[in-house]
């Protein structure tokens, strides 16, 4: 156990020097604060807990570590008082974050309920009006699209003026012809060979 920990400690220290260089001011431990200010960044005290170790400890706090990492952190916690202190600070911090009350609520709950209710109730009504408007529009369109022939003699005269084929189709049958194209009666645009 201790042997294993010592080994890691050495490796951790080496890692720490690298990390400290990357960050140029790597003061990881608040306990080391006084010693670290103005000191070599990779002095023993400062590199004691470096970035990787802190990250590991933080992930451990969240339960986001592998089994091996967990064992590692637990061995630090068992033997290293500084890690223990840091860990307990992190736990207090977590507790503070989780119990932190809101300074002032942005709004009263009753007001919020009223506003939300008003808005969701307005919605369907708006939809209903929209639906009514759409239906009206559709009816209008349908009326306009209706063939005016049966009602207005003037159009009947026009239709008879040019095309012989349309003249042959009775006005009642025109509606049916739109839905079910009559195969038996070839349209003028079709090639004569297409039906045979």
């Amino acid at each position, binding site marked *: 156990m201790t042997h294993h920990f010592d080994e890691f400690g050495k490796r951790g220290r080496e890692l720490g020097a690298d990390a400290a260089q990357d960050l140029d001011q790597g003061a*990881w431990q608040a306990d080391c604060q006084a010693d670290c200010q103005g000191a070599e960044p990779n002095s023993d005290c400062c590199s004691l807990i470096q970035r990787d170790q802190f990250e590991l400890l*933080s992930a451990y706090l969240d339960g986001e570590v592998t089994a091996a990492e967990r064992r590692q952190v637990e061995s630090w916690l068992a033997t290293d008082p500084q890690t223990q202190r840091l860990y307990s600070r*992190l736990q207090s911090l977590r507790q503070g974050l989780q119990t*932190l009350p809101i300074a002032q609520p942005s709004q009263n*709950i009753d007001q919020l309920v009223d506003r939300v209710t008003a808005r969701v109730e307005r919605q369907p009504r708006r939809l209903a009006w929209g639906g009514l408007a759409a239906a009206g529009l559709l009816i209008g369109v349908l009326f306009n699209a209706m063939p005016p022939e049966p009602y207005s003699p003037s159009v009947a005269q026009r239709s008879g003026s040019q095309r012989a084929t349309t003249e042959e189709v009775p006005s009642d049958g025109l509606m049916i012809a739109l839905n079910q194209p009559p195969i038996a009666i070839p349209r003028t645009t079709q090639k004569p060979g297409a039906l045979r």
Partner: protein
Amino acid sequence: MSSESLPVSWSAVEAITPPLSVPVDRLSNYDLILQCQVGLRPGKTLFAELMRRYHAHVEKLLYHLAPDWSDRADLSQEVWIRVYRNIKRLQEPVKFRGWLSRIATNLFYDELRKRKRNSQPLSLDAPRMLEDGELDWEIAADAPGPAEELATQEFYEQLRQAIADLPEVFRTTIVLREIEGMAYEEIAEITGVSLGTVKSRIARARQRLQEQLQHYIEA
């Protein structure tokens, strides 16, 4: 009012859910959510009760995600509108809280993106809005007056300020972790970064906070 507590609905639904025999405020959270899923839309009384129970949670989350937004009230209203419209789609009512948090967080992010697009200076109040990776590791200046006896209120005040002072990416990550209780993977997904980045951001946010608040959290 019974017609209020059990929303008017199609008969097909009534066959599945027994009628309410308990007053709305005595329903368990789980049953309340189930009842809110009945019918085309949640019943008014039921939904109001749901809001009463979970509003503080939404407030707290938005408060910490967007400490310097003056229009958080509109945002939380928007959250509840979305909940109202979509609660039927929630598959597992036990996960309501997490689902609610995600709605709030997503709305916050939508809004954040809009604001970033519309205005180039992020905020005059937040001079420390740095890009990711620039959160300095130097020791924070001493908190004023490290008195021996400090009221909890003062600690909370300091903590609130320290959270608000964190650069945005660090703040949102630590808030989603500590106040939301989200897993790293979930945070990675919601914030669109790698798992490693989440891990590092959380550690660095904690490092900063524990330095700034060391007088209060010292064992």
